[in-house]
């Protein structure tokens, strides 16, 4: 083999280590967009194409006259990656504004879930009692089932769903997270 002398050791880059050790953390982004055909595909396609995570996504029109929708995305990444996600979103032509609620400060996060449970006797009553403890509402009932409506933080819903498992969980439908900042100011 050849006598390959390694190049002189250079001091490690200050950035490489920073990038490698930074922690991944969840961020909640609010994105105000023109409600036009394809806008959701653009946003979702950006995440898929650049390899970013989507942990939750909700979208609905929030200003009918202005044709504007608000998309709430929960993503995770290093602070650098999330900043990059924000800039990439801002680059999309129909995007008006992007706010990283996690960076901006305190915010309220809510999700709605409907949880269907099937069972008889003690299991059925246990499911009902638990739902009351979680401030759930019964939105449908048969002699052998309940469907509960539950609003809260994603972790509260996770917890409730886990509790329903042993008492006859059938299925869950969740809306994904809607979020808004605390305090008097808009995004």
């Amino acid at each position, binding site marked *: *083999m*050849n*006598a*390959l*002398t390694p*190049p002189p050791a*250079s*001091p*490690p*880059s*200050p*950035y*490489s280590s*920073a*990038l490698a050790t930074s922690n991944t953390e969840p961020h909640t982004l609010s994105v105000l967009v*023109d409600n036009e*055909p*394809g806008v959701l*595909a*653009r946003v979702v*396609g950006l995440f898929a*194409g650049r390899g970013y995570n989507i942990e939750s996504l909700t979208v609905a029109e929030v200003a009918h006259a202005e044709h504007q929708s608000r998309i709430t995305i929960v993503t995770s990444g290093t602070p*650098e990656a999330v*900043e*990059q996600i924000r*800039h*990439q979103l*801002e*680059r*999309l*032509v*129909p*995007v*008006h504004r992007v706010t990283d609620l996690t960076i901006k400060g305190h915010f309220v996060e809510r999700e709605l879930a409907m949880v269907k449970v099937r069972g008889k006797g003690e299991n059925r009553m246990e499911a009902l009692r638990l739902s009351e403890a979680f401030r759930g509402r019964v939105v449908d009932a048969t002699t052998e089932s309940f469907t509960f409506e539950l609003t809260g933080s994603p972790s509260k819903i996770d917890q409730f769903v886990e509790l329903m498992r042993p008492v006859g969980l059938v299925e869950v439908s969740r809306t994904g997270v809607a979020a808004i900042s605390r305090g008097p100011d808009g995004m």
Partner: protein
Amino acid sequence: MSRQMTGAEMVVAALEDQGVDTIFGYPGGAVLPIYDALFQHPNVKHVLVRHEQGAGHAAEGYARSSGKVGVLLVTSGPGATNAVTALTDALLDSIPLVCITGQVPTHLIGSDAFQECDTTGITRHCTKHNYLVRRIEDLPRILHEAFWVASHGRPGPVVIDIPKDVQFASGTYVGPQNIVHRTYQPVVKGEMDRIRQAVAMMAAAKRPVFYTGGGVINAGPEASKLLRELVALTGFPVTSTLMGLGAYPASGPNWLGMLGMHGTYEANHVMHDCDLMIAVGARFDDRITGRLDAFSPGSQKIHIDIDPSSINKVVKVDLGIVGDCGFVLDDMVRLWRSEGHGADRAALADWWERIEGWRRRNSLGFTNSRTTIKPQHAIRRLYELTKDRDTYITTEVGQHQMWAAQHYGFDKPNRWMTSGGLGTMGYGLPAAIGVQMAHPGALVIDVAGEASILMNMQEMSTALQYRLPVKVFILNNSYMGMVRQWQELLHGSRYSESYSEALPDFVKLAEAYGGVGIRCDDPGELDAAILRMIDTPRPVIFDCVVEREENCFPMIPSGKAHNEMLLPTGIDDWGAPDLGAVIDEKGKMLV
């Protein structure tokens, strides 16, 4: 001013109002109404290409050499999909294009109709923005908006997909005067505080370098002038990416040559050892940085870019300035003067002395031959024989492209058209056609390889039809040379499928198209043959037969740092190179 007209007429009216004099395209069923509106049009000249990819690259060549928006017009289905490569190319190299595609009538959309494809779906990822126009009322606004989006901020391609019934429908046309884009308002002026801070950092720097890119070219000729002024004021060395060549003249005293994978020894070592890097309209592409964790470890970095997402994307910088290079450079020049800054002359003198040491390695050197034409020699002769003319160079992709970038000296912006980001073989000939349409009297040369040129060879017909005297200068080594070079370096010289088997006789091919063919394999006859090519007022294919296994050096092997370069055999950083052993397993995973 509003007038009643059909959708097809609106398209042509909008082109006129946007100052478009030339478009490139190919007709088909779903765009016939627009072609009817274009029929014998006095102000909008249509250039019929032979493949829609050619239309896209021609529009790119037109745009890059003229600073205007390039326009192409193609039909639905295969017309649109054939344009996808060119659109992606324009996206990666930030070239402003407007691509008008026909679509099946709105009532057939989604029914798998003849020549239907989901054009906006397919092009969503390879355009800056795209539109499907479902209502005639939206058409005039969208047409003008598309030009705005394509040419403002970081430029890029925009697709407008127009169903055939919308082209036939009547509506009210409005001109571009009242079109203001609601959301897309990119920042062009840089923040003054940051620019002031940048100038102070520059004044304090001991080992500075300007690292400039395609953004300076995109910002217009004025930005190149300002760059030259700032370099002259500060005395800093300057290097450039492939896309930025010509912004600072190659004949200028502070020029280090191109940087990156096939950049010069001095440019890459300056990048590695500098204490202040001023990146202007460049995006830290992987061809530039090499191994990221060893990229310019000791420097502070200033990054000027019109696209906020470029800043801190791959390399974390100390000071980001969002703005158009032209505006920011203007402010920098003004502040440098008005605040009475001066560079650290003593430190700079030391810095330049080190640079001279790197320069003495003569990294672009090569061993010339009396019997075979060396490709580097061919480019140097081409440069010497064309430099005093009004010359524009386009390229295909591969070794010839890198040799052209290394050995042809670009002294002006907008003179160099190449596919940098996407690396599209087949770019050069249609791009040359676009350049020649924008500059009818100029000498336009496509520096090509024998493999690349065959990818869009059909465009010779276009050149002939419009009497465009483009010159195709083929460095013919009978190999896909860059593929072969990598196979030599990384795959034990097993030249799998990289030999250009069954090549056509390029002289006869040129003649078959109605052009002129020249073949040269003798270094002694090269000059005379090149001069004959230049003096032929018709399309020429020049088959320049060169050394077959010449490698393109210098080179930063994949996964290596700027100070770990391969130089021409015998003088590299390691002593005696065994190319196969230089690149480690991790490097082999990279491209």
